[in-house]
């Protein structure tokens, strides 16, 4: 019973969509691990394994049963359980019957309340199979998928019909039933390489047995082998595949056997089609990789196949046929699209709706051009770049009405850039259009030129302002207008412009809608939209900062300084970096605690209606030493800060503030702020206000959370 062995559960199904596989296998593994853990069954590593036709969980070193423990169940008092002759009474018999034993099994036990009849029982020791049989069906049936289905008599619902279940503990079959299928030891192999059914002698033999049957069940190994197979196929075609990690992930989950082959297409295609279009076409329609040599794309592709070889060449010829047809279509669109200049398509944008309430893409292009010009002007962009920015803003959505983007929506931006270049637009303009959709979010490269970045920035500003104005504000998992992604991109694009303040441009972006032909509703909403939008941008800033390892209190300390009146993203990241740099010092943390204390004192003073006037600092007659010292120190900080950006950097300023610690400590140790004398009190409050202004200069230090720090620290 106590023997440990590998536990295996395999759900054999019809082909599960690749996009759902990893999540489903992970869910199943979690369910099995939960059941084991709740039952106290010891086990080792839990692995989620899968192919399109199976979800599996393998748990190493799993105990055969739940742990055994002895329990004593107390019954009636001894004197009521046995009569004078020592024979069990009816009370004793009733108690024994309830627990399914004979009264002779009852024992006498001493308890603090006296002697009682009792039964010693062994609890636990339940075989792992019985536990799983009872506990698994519920949660497995409730597993969530983007889409589920019924089949056959319609009794069950799952992602695809379930046909076999292997459930083994070591060599033993577990008595499970799921989806009306009894578990056994029979699995199936690859449909043609080794269909089976195959009897699995033991859980540990399963993976090797399936490999013999043409199935690689470990997804990591399958991907690894597929990479090698694709590389070999591509090298056979004289090149290597153009990497595409997402596509690799997907195709590795569409095969049970990781095979690959290369095919060829006509040399016209790489000669006439831009590599981006070639690659997108292959990927989009055929999930194929483009093969390239040192000098660029070759007339060849590589594709994952579910077979080890192609003895008669059917598989290669089939793919070549489809690929050629698709490339022919792409070439047709590319040629057709080039018959008209991108600029000549602008009119048509008036027929493409951006959003029902927000008008067409033609209107959007005009707003974006205006915003871009405002931003560019404000940043002193040279005239040539300003013109390029304006031109790009007007042209950047024209590719929406091209055949190429109609066929391959994922080429928007890229297609526009390529067509602009082919039209003879300035390189600066073409590049900006090409990179319009970058960065994709919190990660991904920024556009390579300043004009492109400013174009992206103006575009995102406009999208966000419009989205917020009509109430498409993201909440929970709902974000129909992808505003979070737009916000992340906006923050990253703004970070690249040290002199940019987003606050006034946010206001302009909202005004861009309110001033247009859009309804009065939108105008009414404009005022309240700006602060909400600023808060949203601050949130995106926080989410990027967090990804980069910033602590939430540091983010809050910086964000506290910004809002609808000032949103200098680049500056915010610099402040954050300074905080992170200085954070380790003990003086700094102590000072942060003091800053919080000062904040509370000032809040309390305000509540009491006290006068807080920085000019009154040091004006009381007979100012004591510690107070004078603090004033002198604050004055020195104020002189240093006077230098603005040319003065000391943020980290240096924070260090200077941190150096005040002994002075501040002494002040609080020896000085009573709320002195009964009004003049003294006002002077001290004025001093603290000036100190607070310094402590608030780089970041709101009162937001920094110090270990053992309490929010309600009361002023003395």
């Amino acid at each position, binding site marked *: 019973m106590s023997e440990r062995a590998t536990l295996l559960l395999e759900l054999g199904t019809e082909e599960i969509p690749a996009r759902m596989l990893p999540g489903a296998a992970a869910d199943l593994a979690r369910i099995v691990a939960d059941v084991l853990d709740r039952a106290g069954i010891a086990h080792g590593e839990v692995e989620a394994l899968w192919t399109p036709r199976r979800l599996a969980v393998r748990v190493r070193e799993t105990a055969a049963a739940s742990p055994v423990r002895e329990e004593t169940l107390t019954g009636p008092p001894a004197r009521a359980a046995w009569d004078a002759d020592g024979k069990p009474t009816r009370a004793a018999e009733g108690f024994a019957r309830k627990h399914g034993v004979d009264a002779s099994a009852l024992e006498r036990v001493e308890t603090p309340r006296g002697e009682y009849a009792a039964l010693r029982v062994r609890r636990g020791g339940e075989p792992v199979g019985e536990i799983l049989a009872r506990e698994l069906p519920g949660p497995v049936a409730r597993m969530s998928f983007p889409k589920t289905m019924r089949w*056959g008599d319609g009794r069950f619902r799952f992602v695809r019909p379930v046909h076999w279940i292997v459930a083994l503990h070591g060599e033993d079959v577990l008595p499970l039933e799921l989806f009306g299928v009894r578990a056994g030891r029979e699995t199936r192999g690859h449909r043609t390489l080794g269909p089976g059914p195959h009897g699995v002698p033991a859980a540990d033999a399963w993976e090797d047995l399936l490999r013999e049957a043409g199935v690689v069940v470990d997804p990591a190994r399958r991907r690894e082998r597929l990479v090698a197979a694709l590389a070999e196929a591509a090298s056979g075609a004289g090149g290597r595949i153009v990497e595409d990690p997402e596509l690799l992930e997907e195709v590795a989950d569409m095969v049970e056997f990781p095979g690959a082959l290369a095919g060829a297409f006509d040399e016209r295609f790489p000669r006439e089609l831009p590599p981006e279009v070639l690659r997108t076409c292959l990927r989009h329609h055929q999930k194929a990789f483009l093969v390239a040599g040192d000098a660029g794309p070759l007339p060849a592709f590589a*594709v994952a196949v579910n077979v080890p070889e192609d003895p008669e060449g059917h598989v290669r*010829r089939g793919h070549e*046929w489809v690929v050629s*047809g698709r490339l022919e279509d792409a070439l047709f669109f590319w040629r057709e699209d080039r018959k008209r200049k991108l600029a000549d398509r602008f009119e048509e944008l008036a027929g493409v709706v951006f959003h029902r309430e927000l008008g067409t893409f033609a209107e959007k292009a005009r707003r974006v051009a205006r915003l871009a010009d405002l931003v560019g002007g404000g940043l002193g962009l040279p005239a040539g770049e300003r013109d390029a920015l304006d031109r790009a803003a007007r042209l950047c959505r024209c590719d929406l009405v091209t055949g190429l983007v109609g066929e391959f929506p994922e080429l928007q931006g890229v297609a526009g850039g390529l067509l602009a270049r082919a039209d003879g637009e300035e390189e600066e303009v073409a590049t900006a259009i090409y990179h319009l959709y970058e960065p994709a979010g919190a990660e991904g490269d920024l556009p390579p030129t300043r004009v492109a970045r400013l174009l992206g920035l103006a575009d995102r500003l406009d999208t966000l302002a419009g989205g917020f104005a009509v109430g498409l504000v993201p909440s929970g998992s709902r974000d129909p207008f992808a505003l979070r992604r737009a916000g992340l991109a906006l923050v990253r694009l703004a970070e690249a412009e040290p002199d940019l303040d987003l606050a006034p441009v946010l206001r302009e972006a909202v005004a861009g809608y309110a001033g247009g032909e859009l309804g009065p509703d939108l105008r009414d909403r404009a005022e309240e939209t700006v602060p909400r939008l600023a808060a949203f941008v601050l949130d995106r800033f926080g989410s990027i900062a967090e990804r980069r390892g910033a602590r939430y209190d540091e983010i809050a300390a910086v964000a506290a300084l910004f809002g609808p009146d000032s949103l200098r993203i680049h500056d915010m990241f610099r402040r954050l970096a300074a905080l992170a740099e200085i954070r380790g010092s003990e003086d700094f943390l102590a000072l942060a605690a003091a800053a919080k204390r000062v904040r509370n004192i000032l809040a309390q003073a305000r509540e009491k209606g006290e006068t807080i006037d920085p000019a009154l600092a040091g004006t009381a007659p007979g100012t004591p030493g510690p107070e004078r010292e603090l004033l002198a120190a604050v004055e020195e900080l104020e002189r240093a800060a006077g230098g603005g950006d040319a003065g000391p950097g943020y980290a240096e300023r924070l260090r200077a503030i941190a150096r005040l610690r002994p002075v501040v400590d002494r002040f609080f140790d020896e000085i009573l702020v709320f002195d009964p004398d009004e003049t003294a009190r006002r002077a001290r409050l004025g001093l603290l206000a000036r100190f607070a202004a310094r402590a608030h200069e780089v970041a709101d230090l009162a937001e920094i959370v110090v270990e053992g720090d309490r929010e309600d620290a009361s002023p003395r």
Partner: protein
Amino acid sequence: MNPKMTLQEMIAALSAFWSERGCVVHQPYDMEVGAGTMHPETFFRSLGDDPWRVAYCQPSRRPADGRYGENPMRVYKHFQYQVVLKPSPADVQDLYLASLEAMGIDPRVHDIRFEEDNWESPTLGASGVGWQVTMDGMEISQFTYFQVMGGVDLRVIPVELTYGLERICMFINDIRNIFDIPWARADWHEGGIVPYGALRLRAEREQSAWCFRLADVDEHRRQFEVAEREARRLLEAEGGPYLVPAYERALEASHLFNVLDARGAFSVTERQELIGRIRRLSVACAKAWLAAGEGRDEEAGS
């Protein structure tokens, strides 16, 4: 030319194969439809709990797909071989693969895969879960477990297999133009076969011209209204519902819609609206069928 398999041999092989597996081998529906699913023997028999098995070849008209006979793959009318098995049997994938073998396709030298592709028919108020079956990267079949039909959530689940006959025939015979595929072996005909083009090319040219250029938009709109009104009348008529003729009017409306669509007669909103009107007819027919306790013994179509 000595083809491996002609189009008519494929149809005969599939009919024999599914006949042996208990299917009623039916004939194509004698009306214009866009897909085999619209055949009443699929639409109505998918409803309710009674078992059903049927197989037939259905010419399917898709006006917008017409290419004047100039495209090697796309045509106004193509032939679908359609099989419905209800309830879906556990070994349906194996049966499907065996049916390919019956057409001379050896799965051991091909890469046959089931790739996610969920089906939906907004005019039938129907949807299902399943795959497109690809052979060596080429889509050759649709494989669908119906979940909803005529707006009704199904309890007993039918599975529908739809073979793209022309594509498979092109594949088997390594032919790259649909009009070259062998329809029949014929020593009396040039080349020893009657090619698809000999039967279909002229019709493709003319149907494309009709659907894209010549069809009278106003007249089609009028006929759409008539079909819709008749369907309603037949469903509500005393002594009714007369749901088979009513459903046929819905099929008519659907085809008229497709022609108008190919003519580019709609705005996006109007298009959605008309689709909704056809769907409401389909749904009403399905509800009437179930309300009448149909689905057993009686003949649905003719």
